[in-house]
């Protein structure tokens, strides 16, 4: 089986990984996300409990509490770090689920076409026209406030758009020759979808995942800020909820909401960087145009005509 292992070299996944590592944008974005994930997983074991009453409420950043304390006298540093745990977990889980459900429903609709497509498209369209935000607010306030509920609400309101995109992409792949060739060689439909087509959609699926994760983190924080999550847990959303509840703006205690807000912004920024990176990895033209702009002297770049570097020697 040595042969077979050799054949796997340079497969699409290794090409992707090396592409991401070599791409500056994707690499720095991934590093930031990785940093946040590692901090969220491991650092809580070594710091104060985020729910304990520790010091004077609303004391500004100091050596003892580097991000200060909030209205309940809790350590903001600990809250920011522990809040990352659930927020990122729910956000990325929602991202993965949205992509999986979207790929499944959109993929099947696009591949089989006909009546199956009619029914699934109807389902997708119903979810698309439903107003997402009100539905999210109603569901979140009606169901018991647990992380699971939040996840469910986010996935339910978020999957349809991805399913729609994946369906159209699948429809274009469905009529490609390599799919016909696989059918003629006797492959089963499921295998064709999973092994032949899905890997070709990797860039679409990856950016769908990133997009869905950004959306899920934002929506989750928004819901919790409105008090629709479980306010006894520590997340970035509840941090902001408590900050606003304790009148952080009126008391001018900026340290209670800036660390959390900044974290959300940095995570979204990093995810967007990864998305740009994926774009460049899957579409090399974007990179080569940038290199071209760096290499060719500025005064030669003229919108309408091809530049000439040197006259005849």
């Amino acid at each position, binding site marked *: 089986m040595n042969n077979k292992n050799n*054949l796997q070299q340079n*497969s699409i996944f290794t090409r992707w990984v090396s592409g991401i590592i070599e791409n500056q944008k994707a690499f720095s974005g991934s590093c930031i996300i990785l940093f946040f994930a590692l901090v969220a997983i491991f650092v809580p074991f070594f710091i104060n409990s985020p729910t304990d009453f520790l010091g004077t409420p609303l004391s500004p950043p100091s050596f003892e509490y580097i991000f200060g304390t909030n209205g309940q006298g809790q350590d903001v540093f600990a809250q920011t770090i522990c809040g990352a745990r659930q927020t990122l977990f729910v956000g990325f889980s929602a991202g993965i689920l949205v992509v999986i459900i979207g790929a499944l429903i959109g993929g099947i609709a696009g591949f089989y076409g006909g009546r199956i497509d009619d029914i699934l498209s109807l389902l997708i369209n119903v979810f698309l026209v439903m107003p997402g935000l009100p539905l999210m607010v109603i569901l979140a306030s009606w169901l018991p406030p647990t992380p699971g509920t939040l996840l469910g609400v986010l996935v339910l309101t978020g999957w349809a758009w991805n399913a729609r995109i994946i369906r159209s992409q699948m429809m274009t792949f469905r009529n490609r020759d390599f799919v016909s060739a696989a059918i003629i060689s006797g492959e089963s439909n499921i295998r064709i979808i999973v092994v032949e087509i899905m890997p070709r959609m990797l860039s679409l699926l990856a950016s769908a995942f990133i997009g869905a994760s950004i959306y899920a983190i934002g929506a989750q924080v928004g819901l919790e800020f409105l008090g629709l999550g479980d306010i006894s847990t520590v997340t970035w959303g509840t941090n902001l909820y408590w900050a606003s509840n304790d009148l952080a703006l009126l008391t001018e205690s900026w340290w209670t909401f800036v660390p959390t807000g900044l974290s959300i912004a940095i995570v979204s920024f990093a995810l967007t960087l990864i998305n740009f990176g994926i774009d460049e990895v899957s579409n090399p033209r974007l990179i080569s145009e940038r*290199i071209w702009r760096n290499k060719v002297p500025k005064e030669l770049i003229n919108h309408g*005509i091809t530049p000439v570097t040197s006259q005849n020697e």
Partner: protein
Amino acid sequence: MNNPIISVNNLSVEYVTGIKSVQAVHNVSFEINSGEIFGLVGESGSGKSTVVQAMMRILPPPALISKGNVFINNEDIMAASEADIINFRWKKISIVMQSALNALNPVLSVREQIHDVLKIHKGLIGIEADNRAKELLSLVDIEYNRLDSFPHQLSGGMKQRIVIAIALAIMPPIIIMDEPTTALDVIVEREIISKVIELRKKLDFTILFITHDLNLLLEFADRLAIMKDGEVVELDEVKNIQKGGKHPYTKKLIGSIPSASGVRQKGLLTKPDKLTFPKDPILEVKDLEKVFQSSNIFNKQKLVAVNGVSFKIFKGEIIGLVGESGSGKSTIAKLVTRLMRPSAGSIYLNGKNKKVTESRNVPLEYRKTVQMVFQDPFGSLNSIHTVYHHLARPLFRHKLKDQTEMFPYIVHLLEKVGLTPGDKFAKKFPHEMSGGERQRVAIARALSLDPQIIVADEPTSMLDVSIRMDVLEIFAKMRKENNLTVLFITHDLASARYLADRIIVLKNGAIVEENASEKLIQSPKKEYTKQLVTAASPGWLSSLGENFEKKEEYNDQ
């Protein structure tokens, strides 16, 4: 006459990508005299379009002209400013692009598109512009009531003629034609070319004609430059090149053109010593019909793609299915390979009692018997899998070979289709191979199940001319060695003549004529077949009359 109207000296073009730049064009020089038809021939990737686009300075990033100069009408193009260039395009030189489908704006009528050019370059508006537009349309034999048509209402040939009319709008002394007829059917292509030649006679402009089709240029060009890998390998008068040329590459190009007229050249493709077929057909198609219905509920439209086609194929036979685009030949391929269900009719495999079109699920046995080779070697292989995967999957699926036998068998298959060393090729990904190599992999995949019938849908039309015959030879050899049956689908009568034993000519989804290859070529019975045969024979242009013969002065220069 002594002063060339275009002169290109040591032109080099780079594509700036990554650390190293790619040299697309290297030190290309040629001169074109006024009134001449100059041909630029090359296969895909030879840089022929890049040269012309660099001359017009319309190459998009990441291109960069790194060396050389170009003089058109004694104007230095490389030193010109943007304003000069914009002023210069269309007035002095215009270009007819490859695909008329893309060159015309689908949401503007023909009138508006002609008016656009006239307004920008000549300031003509209203009735004046209208009159000029009518003149231009009559030049290319299109009735002026077509002025208000939109591109989608016109046929491919009409669109191409309108693009030519727009190129002529300001009467530039030079017209560049970049593969103007590639997307068109042979008969339409011939019409367009003869129209261009006629117009040149009347209006006396210089033509720079770019194509991959050497055969076509030999008909009407005065001088030719042959390009390969970004360099001009040969530049000579047509009559010298016709004799075979000096460069080995030219010789190969000239030698690889099958012809549909005259005596059949011997030895171009392998043939079995004697052709005898069994009495019972291996595959019989009866009254096959395929109707496509648009699903629009307000406007139900029917398109009959295949209309009552019946034919028989015998074991070990190669049948050529010849037709132009829209003749239904690819639909027949999909019906026979059962990628599609026919609307009516039936397909019998191996004798009368096995009617195969009844069930929706296709049995594996049928898949094993009938395999297909597709037109596009770039699309028919999955870019994320290795060659090994492509060949091994069918064998796994049909449980023909177990793990230990697999690799040697695949290496053997690859070497059989001319990919040596097979173990190296097995590990390659599609993007690491050339078009010809990919098509060989696709053929190996079709052969891997040891099928009895192979449906080859235009297997060579996307390949470079110089390797087409080599690929056809694989089919000829497989037939001789394995008694393989081939349904060879093509638009090219000449290559069908050389590969197939019997030719079926299709038009609008129905069979026009069917006969043994040589008989059909030598004595076609139907008018349509005659047209096809004439269009595929050399000398078709001068046979149209003395108007189309070449100017003697260039021939004797």
